């Protein structure tokens, strides 16, 4: 069983999420990414970033996602088509990672488009925030953007059979 507490974040720091829905988001995030999520990207940074992303979503999408987070937490899963779960499962945030992933799998593979739409909505929020964070790039061997990184600009030969540097760029000189 998990403690149900993932992140310290106050309501004054959030525009769209509540501190409660932030806990659910982290519980879902861990189910999506894995147990080492918080070691790679701190939950607090993740929650604040998702809250920022929600600024740009249209109202309907944002409200649906907030409703989905509440539904998952309060286990009103019949509403999103999963049927009643055993009462001992309690709240989503308190479930073991294995059980949280089981619920995620049911959403992912659900027969109703409603279930799968929630899966996609959560996927969009969680993956864009986690993989948008440079801390997640190490295991991808992705060295990030090239603007500020001459090693990236000049080090890789992404043009096969072509040893030319990408550009002889003298930061002090004209381009």
């Amino acid at each position, binding site marked *: 069983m998990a403690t149900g507490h993932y992140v310290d974040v106050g309501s004054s720091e959030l525009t769209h999420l509540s501190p409660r829905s932030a806990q659910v988001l982290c519980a879902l995030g861990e189910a999506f990414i894995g147990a080492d999520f918080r070691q790679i990207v701190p939950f607090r940074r993740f929650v604040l970033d998702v809250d920022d*992303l929600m600024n740009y979503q249209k109202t309907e999408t944002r409200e649906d996602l907030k409703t989905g987070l509440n539904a998952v937490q309060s286990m009103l899963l019949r509403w999103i088509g999963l049927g009643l779960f055993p009462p001992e499962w309690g709240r989503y945030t308190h479930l073991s990672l294995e059980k949280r992933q089981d619920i995620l799998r049911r959403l992912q593979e659900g027969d109703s488009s409603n279930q799968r739409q929630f899966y*996609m909505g959560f996927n969009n929020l969680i993956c864009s925030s986690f993989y948008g964070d440079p801390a997640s790039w190490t295991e991808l061997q992705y060295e990030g953007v090239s603007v500020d990184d001459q090693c990236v600009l000049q080090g890789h030969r*992404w*043009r096969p059979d072509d040893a030319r540097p990408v550009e002889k760029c003298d930061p002090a000189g004209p381009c």
Partner: protein
Amino acid sequence: MPGQIIHGRDVAEDRRLEADFCIVGSGAGGGVCALKLAQAGFEVIVLEEGPDVPKQTGHGGPCHVRRTLEEREARMYRRLYQEGASRLTSDFQFLVLQGRCLGGGTTVNWSACLPPPRSTLDFWNQHFELDLSLDQLTPFIREVVNYLHIHRDDRFNQSAQKLVEGCRALGLSFENLPNNTLDCRECGSCGTGCPYDRKQSGIVKWLPDALNLPEAAGRVTICTDTRVVRLDFDGRTARSVQARFLHEKTQPTGRNLTVVPRLGVVLSAGAIGTPAILLRSEFPNDLIGRYTHIHPVTICFGLYPDQTFPAYGVPDNMMTADFAENEDHTGYLIETGSFFPVMTAVTTLDFGSRLRRVMSDYSSRGAITYAHNNSGFDLNWDYGTVTLAGNGDPELEYRLQAGNRTGMKDSLRQMTRIHLAAQAEAVYHITNPSIEIRSESELGLLDQVVFEPARTSLLTVHVMGGSRMGGNPHNSVVAPDFRLRKSDNVWVVDGSVFPTGLGANPQVTIYSLALLAASHICQAHGGPFRLDHQEPNPLWQLDTT
């Protein structure tokens, strides 16, 4: 006197402006019209919902031009795309990627340039009573090619190289897809806005040139962070354009703008934005928003034994058109792409250890192919409809046609074969459950692919139609001279006028049609119109008449 940019987020009071023309949208249609109408001496106001992309020297030196375009996917998607790049069709089946910034789609596209396919123009002429031939459009296409430095760039990334190897092995033809770049740095960041201004987009060409016209020309004012709510009509005449200024994060500031057009309004807000404005204006035409089309994009990833660095290099400059043409216009172009962590993760339908493994493998040894599937040619099928939510936000409902489903599945099969022929160890499909194919004998696994929401990840970067053009007033919203039917002073100049999908990356077609539209508008109001870049160009045989 040079023009000016007003940043809507900074405006502290309600404003009322007047000009000859109000242009709504600053993308491929709006940028062209701004320049050409101002050149003709008309005073122009351009309203852009998205933010400006200020030009500042970055801390890395003079090479780092656009400091605010710093290639970070997550931040740039929010700043530059509609709904922070999370816009979906109403059933969640398609991720709809559209620009929402100064320069619109031209700022964020992958710089791929193709002319309008002859077969598509023939179809439009035959079924929609238009007269758009390649011969007629050639001067406009030549202008676009010369002005935007469109050329074939032979610096390929590994995705392109793998496509070449696969096509060679299978005996398929392939060709270098032209780009509108000048001295490209190959950073791979076209989709998040070119930070070096090497992509010849609207914010590099049309709009700065319009702002810097000599004194004799019409003055240009651009208002960014300005969302148009509606046009107010008095009978057939649009009397004003009502807009709201927006904060950086797209919420209204509470300050409003009214623009009074002395001569007319040009709607260039794109294939979802333009119909949405007309719907909010309660303009009387039941066809508004109907017949909206997309190019459904199918994607697959090849996994190779060697490192490929798929995030870097020119993303889209190689293609095969061998499957583009078929009888029912459901063919597809296979083009190359780049691996970007956020976009890949968002479209991947896996989670947990499988997601992590896929992301890790394909980010270092992957090569990506996309198929833009043609669509919109079944005249008995109701493809897409733009409607309004209760709060006025646009929604796109899209219905895949049977022939498209067949074509899209075939595109997955052919892309898989190309990767395998290029010696891929595996080919990954973003389906639910995901499929990895390791040999031709496993191609049958693709029979399991179902094109339903969250069963197969699909996206589109080309939205067209919704205010379709035609010669018959009973089945079109816009007349062949780009004038909005039932209106005296509104023109529609963007991809929303396409009667069907295009069957090619659309920016060159939109630019060319916008030049044609600008010539009509100038003619209607006695303004001079000229093309300035008519040098012969060997690309697409533009050196012959």
